[in-house]
């Protein structure tokens, strides 16, 4: 059995760590490229959202490299993603690239359920080994998220374009190679140090923008047209609440409850879960505004129902909180020019507002 899985940000490093520890052979799909996307677009129904298309491209390329089994998360809430594993399996079955699909459904109550599901996949592995593998994979996820958080914060201070990204990429690779938890922690500390040692403009007082929206668009740069990087290059410090490690804690380990407070903030506008990340998008926008973000960019895949609902509610949030919100829906047709123009105009708007507010404070 050669197992593959879809890309989502640097999740590949986390999944690889888990399976490697369990002795499962893994085929990591090649990095997402235009070729990946065109394979996915050719296979997927036209109206399906971008994540499905990129997933299919990932699977196709992984099968070409020898993968025969796909592990997917499924059954999460009433968003379409919940049955993508089924759809993807059917689509691949119609091609020469048929695969076995294993679905990891998040546990309903307790993380014991998760361990049981992993055991199904590995068969022989002892409980101790499974726990150890999960711990290392989780530690890597935490470290990767911390690095990414710093990437989003420091990109706008770069004196030479691409410096922070380069260091980020190098230390992601080192985290990938780390053998144990102590290693991961050491590499993370070194990575943060290396980022801070770069020639950065520490005097700069950048515009701070919050990124909210659908999880794939937030975590996978190719799912948002590289939104975070574009904002960074426009001189914006980017903040985000949703990271993979937080999602793992909340949905797989059931040990963290940050989502509850986000949902409470959203409650006056959306009182219940509406699928996907619709409710969290609204709550996160408010939370980020309270933490000092001067504006919020909402991003989701085109045709994403929960984000469409959130978008219509966001107009009211924007009005109530005097919070500028820009909503972007991304798919394979999204033009670079149009997106850049909107982002630039949004940043201009925030800068001008900020200048006026500062002048008002100084008076």
């Amino acid at each position, binding site marked *: 059995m050669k197992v593959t899985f879809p890309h989502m940000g640097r999740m590949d490093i986390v999944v690889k760590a888990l399976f490697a520890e369990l002795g499962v052979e893994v085929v990591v799909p*090649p*990095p997402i*490229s*235009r*070729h*990946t996307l065109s394979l996915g677009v050719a296979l997927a129904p036209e109206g399906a959202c971008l994540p499905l298309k990129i997933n299919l491209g990932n699977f196709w390329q992984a099968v070409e490299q020898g993968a025969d089994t796909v592990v997917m998360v499924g059954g999460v809430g009433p968003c379409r993603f919940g049955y993508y594993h089924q759809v993807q399996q059917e689509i691949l079955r119609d091609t020469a690239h048929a695969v076995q699909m294993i679905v990891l459904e998040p546990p309903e109550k307790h993380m014991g359920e998760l361990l049981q599901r992993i055991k199904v996949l590995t068969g022989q592995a002892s409980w101790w080994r499974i726990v150890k593998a999960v711990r290392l994979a989780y530690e890597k996820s935490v470290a990767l998220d911390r690095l990414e958080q710093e990437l989003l914060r420091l990109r706008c201070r770069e004196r*030479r*374009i*691409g410096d922070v*990204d380069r260091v980020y990429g190098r230390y992601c690779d080192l985290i990938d190679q780390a053998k144990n938890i102590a290693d991961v922690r050491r590499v993370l500390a070194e990575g943060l140090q290396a980022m801070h040692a770069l020639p950065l403009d520490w005097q700069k007082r950048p515009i701070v923008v919050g990124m909210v929206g659908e999880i794939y668009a937030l975590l996978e740069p190719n799912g948002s047209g*590289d939104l975070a*990087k574009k904002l960074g*290059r426009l001189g914006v410090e980017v903040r985000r609440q949703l990271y993979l490690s937080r999602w793992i804690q909340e949905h797989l380990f059931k040990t963290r409850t940050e989502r509850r407070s986000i949902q409470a903030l959203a409650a006056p506008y959306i009182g219940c879960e509406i699928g996907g990340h619709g409710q969290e998008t609204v709550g996160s926008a408010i939370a980020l505004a309270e933490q000092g973000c001067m504006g919020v960019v909402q991003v989701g895949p085109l045709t994403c129902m929960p984000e469409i609902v959130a978008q*219509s509610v966001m*107009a*009211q949030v*924007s*009005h109530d909180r005097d919070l*500028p919100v820009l909503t972007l829906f991304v798919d394979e*047709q999204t*033009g670079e*020019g*149009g997106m*850049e*123009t*909107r982002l*630039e*105009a*949004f940043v*201009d*708007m925030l800068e*001008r*507002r900020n200048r*006026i507010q500062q002048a008002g404070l100084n008076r």
Partner: protein
Amino acid sequence: MQRFFLGIDVGSVSTNLVMIDGQGDVRETLYLRTQGKPLVSIQAGLRQLAKDYDDAMIAAVGTTGSGRMLADVLVGADVVKNEITTHAAAATHLVPAVRTILEIGGQDSKLILCRDGVVTDFAMNTVCAAGTGSFLDQQAARMQMPIEKLGAMALEAKHAVRIAGRCAVFAESDMIHKQQTGHGLPEIVAGLCAALVRNFLSNLAKGKRLEAPFVFQGGVAANVGMKQAFEEALGAPVIVPPQHGVMGAIGAALLAKEWVESHGVATRFKGMAVADAVVQAGSWECSDCANGCEVIEVITAGSPVARWGDRCGKWAARMTRDEQDVAWGDLAAGDAERTTAAGSFVG
């Protein structure tokens, strides 16, 4: 000596150049067809301006529009700004009280909300051509009518026929259908205007509060039928500034003026001589990784002066602004060969 500020708006359909004076009044406006060759049209515009202005009179330059980067590389701009910011700057300058800006250009439309001269919200439509200038152009041509007369004809209508305006293709077939069933041309044209306005408002104004005063600008604002349709839909008068067609360029000039005045810097303008420089623009696909970015490169005198379009930034990084200036060096003027814009530039 009087100082002037040059604004250049390189759009999909037209390239506009304006010159404003120290008081912010518009002294000169040029409207040229881009025709897919932005470099050629900018140079043609500069050549016209060079008759009345010399380099020393230009205190700052701003560029905007989809060809703003290219224009910057050619002329050396102090400010390179997106269309939304420049359109808002021009509208708030000419109509300081404006709260809602309706802009319809060749291939996109924008809605910009302002309070006290500051942009508070905006929306932009680039996905759908229905309701933009190109579509009206096409329909006027189909009905064998000069585009300038389309608006006046709409005003003659006794009522507006209901036309499906959601999509340019459906709108056209619906118009043909209405013609075949015997409706008069003025009523159909009025219906088309109403449909485009409906489309504009439902696409861009989602959930936003539109408040008077309204300013309508962009090439399509010349169409009195569209102005009337907006007034009916909004239930309020709509102001069309006399310079409605070159607002982007005016905004770029104003922002350039603001920039050099507030920072006390000299302009980066390379001089009118660039009108005769031999400049080539082209693109290639980088094959260093799987992204296959299309890198755009501008070449003069055999060496690259600017590059962009690469996601990782390694090509652009080799060509920072200062390096660009060095690469340009002393640009040969005189009787150089004509500029060619190679590659596939869509304005």
